[in-house]
């Protein structure tokens, strides 16, 4: 993997094919924890952290255990178990080693297990046949893309709180329409395929 490929891979995951707004992965936390800026940031950073680690871990699992043993069909259960235990491990590690960070991210970590973007990136890595470095970079970039989307969305939603909205659109409908506008803006990056 040379620098150009890695750069185009990460630009692709962050902007052109943003995981949330274009690929529809990780919508639940995107809608669920985007009411306030600081919670959105906390969730975003946890996701970057877990996605990078999960990409590397599932790559090793797939390369050194599942493929040599011919257990390709066990991919889904094996990946989700690895991700769940990884999240648990990260949580325990942070609690002991970096209590300040644990205090900030604490409640978001368990939620990440059911964030489909994490399992999604693991499966996409094997589909794209990336190597260890490529997988980790793609995982990190996907997480950054998620953070970008959720932080932008949270800053819009904070303002929505003070606006006068038709009764039927209160709550989620207006948030969804907002997300649609954000997604439309991200469509503008479609032309950005210089490296491909």
């Amino acid at each position, binding site marked *: 993997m040379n620098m150009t490929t890695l750069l185009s891979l990460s630009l692709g995951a962050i902007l052109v094919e943003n995981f949330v707004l274009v*690929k*529809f992965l990780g919508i*639940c936390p995107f809608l669920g924890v985007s009411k306030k800026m600081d919670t959105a940031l906390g969730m975003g950073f946890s996701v970057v952290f877990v996605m990078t680690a999960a990409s590397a871990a599932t790559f090793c699992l797939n390369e050194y255990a599942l493929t040599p043993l011919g257990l390709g069909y*066990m991919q*889904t259960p094996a990946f989700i178990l690895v991700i769940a235990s990884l999240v648990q491990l990260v949580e325990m590690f942070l609690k002991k080693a970096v209590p300040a960070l644990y205090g900030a991210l604490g409640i978001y970590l368990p939620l990440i297990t059911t964030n489909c973007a994490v399992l999604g990136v693991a499966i996409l890595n094997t589909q794209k046949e990336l190597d260890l470095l490529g997988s980790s970079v793609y995982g990190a970039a996907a997480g950054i893309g998620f953070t970008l989307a959720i932080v932008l969305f949270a800053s819009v939603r904070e303002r929505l709180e003070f606006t006068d909205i038709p009764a*039927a659109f209160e709550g989620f409908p207006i948030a*969804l*329409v907002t*997300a*649609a506008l954000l997604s439309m803006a991200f469509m503008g990056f479609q032309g950005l395929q210089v490296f491909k």
Partner: protein
Amino acid sequence: MKSDLKSVGSRFSDGLIFQNPVTVLLLGMCPVMAVSVSVFNGIGMGLSATFVLIFSNTVISLLRKFIPENVRIAAYIVVIATFVTIVDMLLQAFFPQLSKSLGLFIPLIVVNCIILARAEAFARVNGVFNSALDGLAMGIGFTAALIAMSVVREALGAGTLLGVPVMPPGFRPALLMGLAPGGFITLGFIIAAMQWALNRRKRKGKL
């Protein structure tokens, strides 16, 4: 829990309307948005999720006295992942076309929050028959929401329903509806319509 006709009825009205997994509980949105580009895909996704819901609910309800409290989530995920793998393989074998167009979102049924939520909230504390029924009702609600979304998006985005042209000649498809923003807009308007109807019912009840 006795399962007379009334509770069967309320299971279904909950699943379809009052506790509809997509439009009220807002769970499992990723496949809903991604797959609802065409009605055929929507039905395929809905039925796959229904299958997994029924069987995972049944098995988890059967095992509810044996699964230790502390590791229950991990145990549920293993049960769910097993059935998802079965669905994935069945689709690959018998409906390769559908399997290809649903792609990533079939294995991702594992992390669909609806299924884990029903295991945790319902199958864990209820009998086998009721749990299976709950799985069926929730699955039907999920499928109904998917069909509603995909009918709107396919008709406006491609001018067809199930591949058959339905729009008058001269209709120019709005490409946007088939792309990502269309998913958000359609779901937003469907939920707004439901909120409007429920608000109106409440107001009429008060007057």
